[in-house]
Structure formats: C-alpha cells, structure tokens
C-alpha cells in the first residue's frame, strides 16, 4: 500500500520529524514501511507500506496518522465535514436490509443535478503522485475516501434504479454484470445490493455495470455500509475478485465510519455542482453494532501488564500514566476501576482488539519493543534428550566415517513409485492438492528418492557415490496416516578411493553388507541373520535383484532389505552401472539399545594360526561352514575367516576352492601341539562331512 507523507502531515500539523525518521518510528511499532521514495520538491515522500492483515485500521492515511500521533504524543486533526442543507425529497429512496446477519449498517444519501467531470485540485494531484488512475470526480471521490480513512463506499447512478435499495442474499443462479465487465453467476452465499428488480452490486466487493457512473449521470446514490467480513471474503474468493473494498471489508471495517465516509464523498462530488436531496438514511442492525462498535469495555490490570511484559531497559515496569496515554491516543476510552485496573472501551475501528492481552500488546508496541530489557529466565527443570538421539547420532557418525554422505530428498513421489515401493500394498497416501501430478503421493519408502538422487549425480558425471538419507516414510490412507523413520543407503561406482598406484575395485554387495554389519554391531541384539528368497517369493521387495539381495533380521524381526537394484528398475532408470541400495526400518532398529563396549582380558599366550584349503560344491554356503565350525565347540578357536575363495581349473566345475584361516588361543596356557593336532582332525572331519575335499593332506598341516 502506498502512502503520501504530505497527506499524513495534513492530519498532523505538529509533526516535527523527517519522513525517514517517521518511517523508522512506524516500522519499529509494527506499521512497517518497506521503502521511502522522494517525490521531488514540495511533494514529500511516497511510503511503501507492508501492513499486517490484522491492522486494517492502518491501511489508510488517517489510520497511519493516528499511529504517528500516538508515537510522538502530538494532536491528530479531527475530521469534520459540513455539508450544505438538503432539499426536501419528493419521494425518499426506501432502504430494506433483508439479510440483517450479513449487513450491519447501510447508509444512503441522494445527490441531484451532479456534474460528472474529471477530478481536479487535491484529488488529481494526490492521485498523480500515487499513480492512481483517475476515472471521474464521483468515482475518484469514493477511492479518495477509501485511501483517506479506509472505508469503501459506492456511487450508483440513481436514475438506473428500479425502486428502492434491497440488501439481500443473491438468488441461486442470479446473473450480475460487474464494473470490470464480467458477468457473474451468483449463489445465495453472495450478498448483493439490489433494487426491487435486480442485483446492482456484489456487496463489499464490486459495483455493477448497469448502475455505474457515466458522463451522463445526473443523480447519484452514495452507499456507505458495513458488511459481514466472512461473507465478503467468501464472495471475493469464489469470484476471484480481490478489490480494495473486499480487502478492507473482509478484515473488518469500522462500523462507525459510514456516516463520515458518506459525508466526505458527497462533499467532494458536490464541488463540481449539484445538491443533496432528502434526509441521510442510516439503517443500523443493533445486534451487529453490539458486536462491533458497541462492545463492552475490557478490563486491564497494571499487574498483568508487568507480569507479561517484564521490565523496560531502565529496570522499571511501564508506569500507569504511560499506559493511559498510549490507550487514549489509540482512540480507546479508559476509566479507572481500582488503583491498578481500568475499564477500556475499544475504538470501533479496532476489531482486532478483544482481550486484555491485545491491549498489553498495544502498550508494548507503542512503547517500542527494543526499549524493554533483555533478561534471562531462571529454570528449575531438567534437560532430556530424545530417546533415539544417541542412536541417530551413532548411525550418522558411522556412515560418514564409512564415506556415506547425508542427503535430504523430496517427501513426495509419483503414483507409480508409490505403488512399486510401498511396503504394504494399497497402503499409500495421496495428496489432495499435489504440487504437480508427478508428485501426488507421500513417499512410502526412501528408495525412490535415493534412486533419483543417484541418477541426478550420474547424469552429471559423478560416478562414485555413497549416499544415505534418514527420514519419515508414510503408510495408510486418507483416514489415517502412519509415519515411521527409515534409513536408506545407496552406493555405486568404485569401492575405494581411486589412486594412480592402486587398482580400482567396483563397489560390491559385500561392501554394502559390510556397512550394514557395522551399523548393526552398534546395537544390542540377541540374534541377527541375513537371508534371501527366490525370485518368486513376495517376501523380497520387487526393486531388489532376486539373486543378489538379502533380508536383515534381528531378534526375529525384519529390519530391512538390501542388495543390488533389480535389473528392470535399473533399466527403467537408465542406469549404466550397478546400483546398490538398502532400506531399513529405524523404528524397529531403535528398539534395540546401543551397545556399551565391554573390555575383555587380553591373553598373555601366543595365538596359533592354521590355514585349511578345501574344495566345496557351490551349494555349500559359507554360513553352513561357519555354523559347522561353531558346532565343534572348541573354546580356544577364537576366529574363523574365509581367507580366499577362488575357482581352480584343476577342480571339477560347480565347485570352489576355499582357504580357511582359523586362529586358536587360550587365556591360561600356551597351546600344545597335541591339542592343535586334535582340533585340526576335528575340523577336517567336519568339513569333509559337509562335502568338502581337502586340497592338501592333513599331514602337511601337522
């Protein structure tokens, strides 16, 4: 909104500060001035305002002048108009309010023998500085008064009216051509100003085409009214019409302003000739007056002001004399009801003030927020962390150390992705007003977001990637939505930092499995395993490669799935390198406590390393071998490790060679040769029973 400093000063004869000082003072009191532009000699400045929606009273020159008067404690010039005496009316225009719940007040004044001419003088000059379009003296007069005191009015060509004024709800399907030339079809929730035959104007929003002021207009009916804010807002929205009038009515106009507004408008129109006919008609709905201009006083306590605001910078609370001065300057009437309390009657233009706290805010505002002290409150409570804060922090720390970078991706996904990546079918949440059709669902998984981030990087020639995201995923339907925390890992490219002197290795399933094991090792679990299912199984997510992915289970609960991206997904995303991805249920993982390190005694006796070289059929998996070794129950066997796995051309196909390393150590003694021989025998026998063939005879080991 634009404000002229010269116009403001016309209401503030004693204002002694510069336009820039005034702008700063207003801004610090919440009447924000975004810019001050010099308009040249004698023209003052143009102030670009940003008034918060609750302060409709300050969306005009007089309202801002009132704020300045309160800030500087200077007088505000009263607004007075003396209109010429009216000629008696042959036939007064009847006014009927048929929707009293929507129209609280309607005033009308009739002007005859007017001249519709271009505006001159002060109006033309101020409009030119404001770059406001000039239309005609009658229309400009209504706009001028809106800018002056903030109350919208309307001028009808009285000769186009058929009978008196009726303020009523529109008929369903009723047509009305508005001033902008468009024809609108109305609904009964629209309020119209009508005559006996037809709708004339969309009340509080825009006037009608048919009764608009033209150069031929000789008789005018000036409307100044008060319309229900909600009704005006709905009509304005419904018809996509945001006007200066609707902007003010929908925020709550001044119930007492219509009489003054009408007088100001008529005074301006009559400057070009004409006369008033008949009495000023003023219909007031008392019920609405009681809710606006006639509200009961609010009680205000000095102790409450101090309790909420605390001390000012000089170490004292605000004193009662200052409180009284601020409230009076804002237009409130105050009456002392006790040594420390007041009954405050609110001005009709401040519908935003309704409670004691509103008055306290006004006092703080006018005093200036920065004139209050900076204090720190004492506190007796304790500080608690979120129960999972340490676990999240462990995951982040471990992943970052392993080279994984944290990302944050979109909360939304497409319908296709929602269905593909949903963990329970049909449990996906659609948005009612998505940003676009491609992002119409809440993500049921972090996988689609991760895939699109991997693609984003690969498309930019960044090929070695290790990314993770922690965030909420959504299941449910429009009745109920569940959110749970999830973790996704995505990786592709080389596994180690490239260097001129070292050979590169591609990131593999085992790299991903390794970091999963590392993460799990941070938590207390009684049992943990990974398994896989056949392609036909619905237990595995469809986005994972059936033969190259695993499920993670801890203490009987599935914690997640990970592995190579399924070939069809890889193709549809046009990936040219193998993608590894895994998603984990953090709600389940976080049920496990973080593992506390426990130190064990280090043996003072030497460890003995023994390597076993065997050939196994492909069907024998490492897990079986490991379990077999464990079942031997040799407490001195402290580690077993597949040292090397390779295909030996000399061995039959469908088999692989395994170099197994076993380490033995005792806490209480140096191991004897006989013991080691005995264990080697046991291991040989067990591995052969599994289907293994020794590549070297046992004797070579002994």
């Amino acid at each position, binding site marked *: 909104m634009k404000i002229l400093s010269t116009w403001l000063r016309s209401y503030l004869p004693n204002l002694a500060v510069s336009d820039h000082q005034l702008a700063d003072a207003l801004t610090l009191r919440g009447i924000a001035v975004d810019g001050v532009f010099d308009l040249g000699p004698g023209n003052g400045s143009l102030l670009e305002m940003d008034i918060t929606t609750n302060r409709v009273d300050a969306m005009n020159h007089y309202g801002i002048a009132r704020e300045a008067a309160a800030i500087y404690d200077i007088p505000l010039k009263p607004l007075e108009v003396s209109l010429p005496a009216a000629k008696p009316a042959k036939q007064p225009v009847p006014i009927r309010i048929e929707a009293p719940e929507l129209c609280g007040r309607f005033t009308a004044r009739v002007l005859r023998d007017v001249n519709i001419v271009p505006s001159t003088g002060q109006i033309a000059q101020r409009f030119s500085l404001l770059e406001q379009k000039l239309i005609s003296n009658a229309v400009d007069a209504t706009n001028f008064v809106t800018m002056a005191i903030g109350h919208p009015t309307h001028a009808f060509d009285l000769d186009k009216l058929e009978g008196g004024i009726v303020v009523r709800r529109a008929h369903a399907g009723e047509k009305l051509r508005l001033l902008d030339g468009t024809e609108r079809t109305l609904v009964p929730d629209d309020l119209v100003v009508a005559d006996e035959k037809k709708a004339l104007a969309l009340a509080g929003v825009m006037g009608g085409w048919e009764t608009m002021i033209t150069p031929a207009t000789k008789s005018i009916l000036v409307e100044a009214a008060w319309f229900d804010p909600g009704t005006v807002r709905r009509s304005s929205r419904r018809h996509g019409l945001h006007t200066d009038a609707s902007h003010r009515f929908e925020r709550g106009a001044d119930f007492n302003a219509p009489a003054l507004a009408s007088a100001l408008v008529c005074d301006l129109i009559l400057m070009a000739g004409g006369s008033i006919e008949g009495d000023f008609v003023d219909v007031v709905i008392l019920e609405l007056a009681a809710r606006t201009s006639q509200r009961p006083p609010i009680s205000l306590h000095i102790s409450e002001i101090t309790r909420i605001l605390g001390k000012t910078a000089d170490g004292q609370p605000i004193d009662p004399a200052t409180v009284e001065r601020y409230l009076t300057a804002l237009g409130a009437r105050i009456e002392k009801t006790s040594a420390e309390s007041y009954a405050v009657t609110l001005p009709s233009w401040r519908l935003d003030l309704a409670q004691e706290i509103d008055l306290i805010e006004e006092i703080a505002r006018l005093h200036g927020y920065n004139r209050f002290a900076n204090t720190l409150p004492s506190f007796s409570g304790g500080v608690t962390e979120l129960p999972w804060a340490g676990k999240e922090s462990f995951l982040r720390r471990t992943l970052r150390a392993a080279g994984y970078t944290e990302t944050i991706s979109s909360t939304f996904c497409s319908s296709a992705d929602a269905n593909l990546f949903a963990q329970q079918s049909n449990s996906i949440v659609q948005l009612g007003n998505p940003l676009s059709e491609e992002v119409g669902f809440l993500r049921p998984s972090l996988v689609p977001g991760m895939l699109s981030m991997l693609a984003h990087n690969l498309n930019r020639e*960044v090929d070695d990637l290790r990314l993770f995201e922690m965030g*909420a995923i959504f299941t449910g339907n429009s009745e109920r939505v569940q959110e749970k925390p999830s973790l996704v890992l995505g990786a592709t490219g080389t596994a180690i930092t490239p260097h001129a002197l070292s050979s590169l290795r591609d990131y593999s399933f085992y790299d991903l499995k390794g970091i999963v094991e590392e993460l799990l090792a941070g938590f207390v679990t009684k049992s943990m395993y990974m398994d896989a299912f056949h392609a036909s199984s619905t237990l595995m997510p469809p986005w994972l490669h059936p033969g190259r992915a695993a499920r993670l289970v801890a203490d009987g609960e599935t914690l997640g799935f990970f592995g190579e991206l399924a070939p069809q997904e890889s193709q549809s995303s046009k990936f040219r390198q193998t993608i590894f991805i895994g998603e984990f249920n953090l709600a389940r993982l976080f049920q496990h406590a973080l593992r506390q390190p426990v130190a064990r005694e280090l043996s003072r006796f030497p460890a003995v390393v023994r390597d076993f070289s065997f050939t196994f059929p492909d069907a024998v998996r490492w897990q079986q071998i490991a379990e077999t070794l464990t079942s031997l129950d040799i407490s001195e066997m402290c580690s077993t490790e597949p040292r090397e796995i390779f295909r030996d051309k000399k061995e039959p196909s469908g088999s692989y060679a395994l170099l197994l390393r076993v380490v033995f150590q005792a806490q209480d003694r140096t191991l004897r040769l006989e013991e080691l021989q005995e264990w080697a025998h046991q291991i040989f026998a067990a591995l052969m029973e599994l289907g293994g063939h020794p590549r070297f005879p046992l004797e070579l080991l002994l």
Partner: protein
Amino acid sequence: MSSSQIPVLESYGSEHLDAAFQALQADVARQAAELRTSEDREQFRLYWLGRKQGRLKLISDVWLKNAPAEARKSLGQHFNQLKQQIEQALEADSETLAPSSVPADAIDITLPGIRPTLGAEHPLIRTMHEIIRVFEHMGYSVGVGPEVETDYYNFEALNFPPNHPARDTQDTLVVANQQHKPLRDRLLLRTHTSPVQIRTMERQPPPIRIVIPGKVHRNDAADATHSPIFHQVEGLCVDENITFSDLKGTLDHAMKQLFGSNVRTRFFPSFFPFTEPSADVQISCIFCGGKGCRKCKHSGWIELLGCGMVNPAVFEFVRGKQPAYDPKKISGFAFGMGVDRIAMMKYGISDIGLLYSGDMRFLEQFA
C-alpha cells in the same frame, strides 16, 4: 670441502675486488660440478650458505668490517652475485641428480596422498544441530512431532480462525479426500513446527523448555529462495513469570551464541495468531557488521526469526488436557526460525534447491 682460510683482500680497489671474487666463483663452479648425491648438495649448501659458519658469511664479515664506505656498495653487489651463483648451482643440481644416488626402493613422495573418502554432513542437519546445541545449553530439551498433522494441531489450537488464509489449499498441502471430516480432523502436511508446541503441552505440565527441529511443507512454487519442503526449529518456554523481556534476553543470547558475540538484535511488532505480543527479530548483518552491504540490502540488518508471548487462547486449548496451563498463572514465549535460510546465509548457498538435490558436487563441500 675442508674449510679454508679467509682469502686476503689486498685492497678494495675494483681490480682486486674482481680478482678476489673471480677466485671465489671458480671455487663454487668447481665444487658444483662435483655434486652427485643429495648429501653432496647439502654439504655444499652448508659450506657456502650455512647460517653461522657458512663461508659466504665468514668472508663477508671480515671483508665488510674493514671496508671503506665508498666500497661497500660494490662489495655488496659482488656478494649478491656470488650468492646467486651458489643458489643456481643448488637448483640446477636438484634437477640433474645422478640416478645412481637414489635408493632403489625410493618412491615418488610428490604424488597425491590417498585421502580416505569421508561422508559429508548435510548443511541443514549441521545447522539444525548448531541451533539445538545453543538452546540445550540454556536448559532446553528436544522434541519432535509428526509431519502429517490434523487441522486442529496445525491451525485451530494455535488460534488460527476458521477462515484464515493459511488454511487455504493455495498455501497448505492436504491429504486427499478429507472433505467429509470435521475441519479439525482433516489431515494436512504441517506448515510449521508449531503444532509440536501443543502436543508437548498436552503431554506435560509446566515448566517447559523445548526446541523442536523438523521438516515442514507448504504449497509454494520453487525458486532460488523458496522450496515446498523446508526446515524449522521451534522453541517454547512456559513457566510462572516468563516475560517479554525474558523472550528478548533469551533470543539475544542465542543469536550471539550462533553468530558471534558482536551480533546485536532488534525486535519489531509482528502478527502471529498463536503469540501476543508477536515480534520479528533482526540481527545486525553478519557480513558487514551493520554498516550495510549487498547481503543485507544495505540496511545493516537481517531478518531471522519470528517469536512472541504465547497467546492465552493457546493455553486455553491445552487446558482441557493439562489444567496447569492457566493463562492467569503461567506465561511463556515461543519462537521459530527457518533452518534453510540460516544455513544458506552461514554457508553462502545461493539456491535452496541444492539442499534437496543430493548433488555430491554441492554436498562434498561439507565433508
């Protein structure tokens, strides 16, 4: 290279000077030609240029001591030439060291090192943790809440009137098919972290000091400074005798912790339905210190957060579940700040979209 006597300078006449320096230059040239290994070179360097016992220093000490004033300039020039000759010999030599002088197992130590790949912390997570830490030190606990909220928690209980523009689908993303439900039960994506204020107060009586980090969504078109997804940190302090000056002091202290002790704060009246009085807070520009620069649009101030005293109407909403929230007995303040904006300012990020792109070229800068 055994140490030799300081040569005797017969006179400071130019003839004698030239002859003396030619002799020295010949010495240098002869020795330089014999350099084979890096040890040789170091010996040569020490012999001539050693800080205390270097021959150049010893000779110049003696010759300069007795030099008449008019000869000093010429003498200095000669010494400089000689020094240059020695340094050139050293440099040239480092390029032509005989291969036989390098140990067989020497490696090229000038190749780049193998730097372990470290993952990067996301700038938003980093900023969020920085903000949380400041408030934790002031006695604040951490709370969180759901991203899908009901209209009740996101709007109604925060004192938004039923027709408030923020409730419009132009501003708020909503879950599909909610029209049949009562307004307060309709599901939407929270537009701010403030609903967690209500959830926290419903769960526990005062005193409360809590900070709430989280992701929020609005139906905004994306541009360099707007994203439909962004992050906030909310704060709430409720107790007996919490005042507006406590709010000011708390935020002033927090901003100094976050941005440095020179930072000043400035409070402006603002309007939020759930606080009263409400304020916007500006900090003195962290780039120019308040003098005015491009970053602060030459105002010297940067707008950073919104705050205010908890509106008594909000306490009335939670009083049903927690009677201790009697607005006549307790009071409190709340504040909220945009994490994205603060991160962009702190780290000089020009496009908010980068934060949500997963682009490694951007993220690796934070490793």
